[in-house]
């Protein structure tokens, strides 16, 4: 099997339909773990070259616009790619997750992205009274601070999506305790070394 064959199978309608049987994120993970193409991809992702290719594939699929009235047809594939990348290279997976998290018309992919970034869905979030303290563009001269009355809503500006311009692996950090949350958004090129983020408490 080649990487192309595996990605073709994972991006097929048949695969999306199969993964659609999942009733929960846990079941989605179980189904992915037992799929032959996903298992093959997982082993292939031990090489940095394959990891970069899958990262690029995720970014391509996220930008792809199919029928905007419906959920992205690549939702399950993006979710599986993110999940596989998360098992093999967490930094790259988080980089991809920062893109996926703000993309509309995704369901499973968004859940996986949120998990990679430390969040949770399904009413299980640890945040009960989150408040934004600041949003800082770490690699950009723009510094934005905002607060909101909506105590559990964290607004993150859409990242720039020019060619080769993606968020750094730790560009979005959500730190949540019982009383507040802080988020930072930064931009860097794909090849930029992770500079890390500072989290205000």
């Amino acid at each position: 099997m080649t990487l192309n064959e595996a990605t073709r199978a994972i991006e097929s309608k048949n695969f999306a339909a199969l993964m659609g049987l999942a009733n929960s994120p846990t079941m989605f993970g179980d189904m992915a773990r037992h799929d032959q193409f996903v298992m093959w991809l997982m082993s292939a992702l031990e090489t940095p070259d394959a990891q970069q290719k899958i990262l690029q594939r995720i970014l391509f699929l996220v930008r792809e616009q199919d029928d905007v009235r419906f959920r992205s047809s690549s939702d399950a594939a993006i979710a599986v790619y993110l999940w596989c990348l998360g098992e093999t290279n967490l930094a790259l997976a988080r980089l991809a997750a920062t893109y996926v998290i703000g993309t509309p018309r995704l369901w499973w992919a968004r859940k996986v992205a949120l998990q990679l970034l430390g969040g949770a869905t399904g009413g299980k979030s640890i945040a009960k009274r989150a408040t934004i303290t600041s949003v800082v563009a770490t690699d950009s001269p723009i510094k934005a601070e905002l607060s909101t009355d909506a105590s559990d809503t964290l607004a993150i500006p859409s990242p720039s999506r020019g060619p080769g311009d993606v968020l750094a692996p730790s560009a979005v950090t959500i730190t949540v305790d019982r009383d507040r949350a802080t988020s930072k958004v930064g931009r860097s090129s794909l090849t930029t070394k992770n500079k890390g983020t500072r989290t205000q408490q």
Partner: protein
Amino acid sequence: MIIIGQGTEQDPNALRLYTALNRYVPNERPDAERAPESLREARKIVRKFSPTAICRSLTSKYNCMGLVFATRRTIVPIDHISMFLEDDGYSQVTRDRVIEGDIVIYARGGLAQHVGLVHQLQDVSPQYDRSIVQIWVLSQWGDDGEYFHKIDEVPPLYGTPSQFWSERTPE
């Protein structure tokens, strides 16, 4: 936009869903339905697990819990099933006491994985020379649509029909 506390009472997109005892039930609503061609493909997958399944509705707007407990309006994680069983007056019944309208819970490893409504009790005794009732269930299969299906014809990951519950008031 990222919602912290997605699915909680603070999530503006979640349904205000409560049990009979006024406990909030976490739920989420997707921002987009799956495309019709994707759902038609899903129907083919369903038929692999249940060749006799009859599609009632091809939609991904709700899940099995949403069908049974939230009148097809939202997605409720299966982990919250005990909230309904405890607060909405359900009692466990044995398989031989089940009637139409009761619910069946599928479990794997002792954990609930899927839930459906008992739709029909079909007497298939003549085929077997002994008294056998085939139970037909109505349930939503993940994102893949809502189906009438034989009780044992589900994907292996859903587990097996393990418990039956009813909110019936005795005559």
